[in-house]
C-alpha cells in the first residue's frame, strides 16, 4: 500500500545511533585529570576521515556516550587521538580502561575550523584548559603547511602549571615557527611564566585586524572575553571563530539538547563564527 505521498525509503537505513568499535591502542596520562586515548578503527564499514575541529561520540557500554573533540593530525589516517578530561559518568568510566579494550565510536560530527579563511593571513589560536584539544589538529595542520600562513600565534592558559595540556610540545611548536604564549590562573613556585587569565595574553601580541583570523575554544566566559579583546582590536566578527560546548545525546541534530538559540551545536557547531553567535552568546542562562 502506498500512502500519504511520501518518498519511499530504503528498508534498511543504517541507524545513525549505532556506534562502531574502536580499539584503544594507547593511553597517555597528560595531567592529573586528562588522558589522551589513541584509537584504532577498522577500515570497515568505511574509512575514517575528519576535519580539524570535529568531534566523535565515544561510547562505553553501561555508562553512555560523551562528545569528545578529535585532537590528532587529520592527515594521519590510521589512528585517532582524543584528549579526555575525566569529570563524570562516561569520562570517569573511560579513565579506568586499559589499552587493548574496545569502545564504541560514532563520528566525525560537527563543523570544522575554517582553515581556508586563515590561509595567507595571520592565525591566532586561543585555548583554555581542555579547549586546546580541538585546536591541536589545527596546529598539526600548520606544522605540515607552515608556509600557507603568515604569523601563527598560540595563546594558551590553564588553571595551574600542572593542568597545561601538551606542555612537552610547546618547544617544538615554537621551533616550527609558532609564537606560543602560555599563562596560568594560579602559579606555583617553579612557574616562571605569566600568571593571569587567557584574554590578557592579547596584550602581549600585535594584531593586524583585517589580516587576522582567530580560533578559540575554552570555557564560555573565556571565549566571551576573547571575542571582546578581538573586537576591541577591530578584528571583524566574521574572523572570530568559537568552538561551543553543550550537553549532547545524539550529535545528529535530533535529540534537542545542544540547542543554543536557533542553533544546534552538534550540527551548526561546535565551530561557529562570532558573527552568527553574537545575538545569543553569553546571554544569561541561555
Amino acid at each position: 500500500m502506498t500512502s500519504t505521498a511520501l518518498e519511499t525509503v530504503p528498508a534498511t537505513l543504517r541507524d545513525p545511533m549505532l556506534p562502531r568499535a574502536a580499539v584503544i591502542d594507547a593511553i597517555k596520562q597528560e595531567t592529573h585529570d586528562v588522558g589522551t586515548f589513541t584509537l584504532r578503527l577498522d577500515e570497515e564499514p568505511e574509512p575514517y576521515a575528519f576535519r580539524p575541529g570535529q568531534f566523535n561520540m565515544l561510547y562505553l557500554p553501561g555508562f553512555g556516550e560523551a562528545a569528545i573533540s578529535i585532537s590528532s593530525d587529520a592527515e594521519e589516517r590510521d589512528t585517532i587521538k582524543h584528549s579526555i578530561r575525566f569529570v563524570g559518568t562516561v569520562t570517569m568510566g573511560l579513565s579506568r580502561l586499559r589499552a587493548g579494550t574496545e569502545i564504541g565510536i560514532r563520528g566525525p560530527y560537527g563543523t570544522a575550523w575554517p582553515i581556508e579563511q586563515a590561509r595567507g593571513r595571520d592565525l591566532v589560536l586561543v585555548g583554555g584548559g581542555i579547549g586546546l584539544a580541538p585546536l591541536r589538529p589545527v596546529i598539526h595542520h600548520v606544522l605540515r603547511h607552515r608556509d600557507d600562513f603568515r604569523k601563527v600565534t598560540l595563546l594558551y592558559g590553564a588553571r595551574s602549571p600542572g593542568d597545561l595540556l601538551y606542555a612537552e610540545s610547546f618547544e617544538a611548536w615554537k621551533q616550527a615557527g609558532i609564537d606560543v604564549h602560555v599563562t596560568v590562573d594560579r602559579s606555583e613556585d617553579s612557574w616562571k611564566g605569566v600568571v593571569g587569565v587567557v584574554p590578557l595574553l592579547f596584550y602581549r601580541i600585535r594584531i593586524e585586524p583585517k589580516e587576522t583570523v582567530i580560533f578559540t575554544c575554552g570555557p564560555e566566559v573565556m571565549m566571551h572575553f576573547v571575542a571582546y579583546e578581538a573586537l576591541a582590536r577591530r578584528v571583524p566578527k566574521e574572523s572570530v571563530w568559537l568552538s561551543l560546548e553543550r550537553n549532547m545525546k545524539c550529535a545528529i541534530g535530533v535529540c534537542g539538547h545542544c540547542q543554543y538559540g536557533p542553533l544546534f551545536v552538534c550540527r551548526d557547531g561546535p565551530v561557529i563564527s562570532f558573527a552568527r553567535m553574537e545575538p545569543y552568546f553569553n546571554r544569561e542562562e541561555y
Partner: protein
Amino acid sequence: MNQARPKVAVYKFSSCDGCQLAILCLEDELLTLAEKVDIANFLEARSRVVDGPYDITFVEGSITTEEERERIQRIRENSKYLVAIGACAVSGGIQALRNWIHVDAFVQAIYATPEHIHTLATSTPIADHVHVDLELSGCPVNKRQLLTVIASLLRGRIPDVPPYAVCIDCKLNGTPCVMVAQDVVCLGPLTRTGCDALCPSFGRGCYGCFGPSDMSKPETLAEHLKGRRTATPEIIRRLRGINGWSPKFRAATEKLEKTTP
C-alpha cells in the same frame, strides 16, 4: 570498588523493613548478587556476620533513639560507601510526622510505665547524623533503581538516579493526568520519579513517596490548589505524608500553617 568481592552490609534503623525487603525482592538477581558480592552483614537474610569494614553499606530507617544515634556513627566509620535507602533514611520517613506532635503525651497514653520507653523527640534522616554517599529515595525504594545502584557501584559508574518529577514518567506511560482530567489532587509535579508514576496509573493522585523532585515547588502548587478550593489544612496534610519532613515539603507546610488562621 575494584577488588574481587566487595563486602556489603545492610542495616536497619526505625523503619518498616520494606526497603531491605526490596533486596530480597530482587528474586531474579538475588543469587547472582550473592555471587558478585559478599553479603557480609544482613540480619534479616542471614545469621552469618562478617566483620567490616564494608565496601557498600545500605542503611534503612531513620534515627529515633539515642542508641540509633550512636550506632550510625559506628556504622559510618566501618563503611566505605554508605547508601541511605528509602524515605525513612532520606527524609525521616512517615514516623517523622511525630516531629510535629508531642510524643511524650502519647507515650503516657499507651504505655503504663512510660519511663521504659526511650525515644528522641524527632525522627531524622541519616544524613542529619553522618555523611551519606548516596541517597535513594522512595517508600519503598524501587528495586530496579536499587539494582542499578549496586550494578553501577560494582562497575565503577556513578549511580544515576533521575531527579525529575513523576509527571514526566506519567506522560511517558501515557496516563491521562488525573489532576487535569479527574480533578484529583496529585503531588506528581512536586515529587521525584522512581515509582514509574504508579498512583496515577491507578487513577489516583501521587502522594509523594519519593520525596521532592530536584525543582519541586510545593508553594506554587499549594497556591494553585487553594485557587481550586482545596482547603489549606488538607494541602498541609497532603504534603505532610511519607516525606513530610523533607526540607522542601516541611518549609512549605510550616509556611502554610502560619498563613492560616
